[in-house]
């Protein structure tokens, strides 16, 4: 799936450290894969959130097929999983296709 959103960047195993762990902004990472229906289905919500939180929280996507090391490091065995990072630390996570309100609540834990 091509990522058409202008606010959601993609990250991979090699730039995860610089893009997420060393980012000054809190980061929400959406771990997804092309074979996961619920992952694709929450895509539009992720795009909306990225627009709403632009400049405050960096929202990025990681394809777990292309980048298996990072999901392994964080013990991810189910997708979609969204992990919130602040100052390089994973502070909270949600698994499953949840609604926008629950995702906003997760993001609010960064502030």
């Amino acid at each position: 799936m091509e990522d058409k959103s202008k606010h959601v960047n993609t990250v991979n195993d090699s730039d995860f450290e610089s893009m997420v762990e060393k980012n000054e902004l809190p980061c929400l990472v959406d771990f997804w894969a092309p074979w996961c229906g619920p992952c694709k289905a929450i895509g539009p919500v992720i795009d909306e959130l990225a627009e709403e939180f632009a400049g405050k929280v960096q929202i990025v996507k990681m394809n777990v097929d292309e980048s298996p090391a990072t999901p392994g490091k964080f013990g991810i065995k189910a997708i979609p999983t969204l992990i919130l990072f602040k100052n390089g630390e994973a502070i909270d996570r949600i698994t499953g296709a949840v609604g926008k309100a629950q995702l906003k609540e997760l993001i609010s834990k960064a502030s």
Partner: protein
Amino acid sequence: MYAARGRLDTLLIEKGATGGQVLLTDWVDNYPGFHDGITGFELMDKMTAHVDRFGLEKKFAAVTAMDLQGEQKVITLESGEELTAQSVIISTGAKPRKLDVPGEEELQGRGVSYCATCDAPFYRDQEIAVVGGGNTAVQEALHLTKFASKVTVIHRRDSLRATAILQEKAFAEEKINFIWDAQVSEIVGNDEGVESLNIQHNDGSTSNLPVTGIFVLIGVVPNNEMLPMEQLETDEGGFVFTDHEMCTKLPGVYAAGDIRSKNSRQIINAAGEGATAELSAEHYLSNLAVD
């Protein structure tokens, strides 16, 4: 789709993603017209595109409360916004039932899964378990054999409820074996993930099965938290009663799909019920206009 084509002033309110449980399904082999089969996601994508072609208006928001009595139905959204309508079709569906055993909540996403199509590739060459004996459990157990080295199906009865063709496939699959007459009593694991399952057998004995993943596929519970349960008639499981025209006991209020009290929860049933409910609603609205 029927409502949009009928040019009714219709709004589809959706909490998460359009498609619901079908998105959790790896492969749909029994929807008419798709003679080669189709993935759950693709089928829902096509259905969404279909209603979009007729210009159905959609709103992505969670409903927190509904007042369905009286001529004006009031729907409250999570934002506090209130919407009114003359007629409402309830199609909130159902979600996977949980085992409700120790370890399940803590290990969700770390080895406990309710969606084989989402999570199967994380279990390449690993030994895993499926709990359940219905169509979903057996279909997804078969899907999991593409990745896992061994799939143990744990079922509380001594035979499967799944349809014959799925049973034949499952019994022929070397990677699948069965533990009959047994239930999972605890999921054991740590921060790294699931390690094993404690199993309670119906004969009173217990055992431990080392697995790295457990897929819980034991049926569904209704998404009824937002429904005015005191205004509707529901069965003991919380599913909404309707007549064969999809009418609930409240005038102008209909229900369709897995939220209904019924025996068969198939995509084809839900589609047909949606059409019936819409035609009932259309009939109701045209009578209102005459009065």
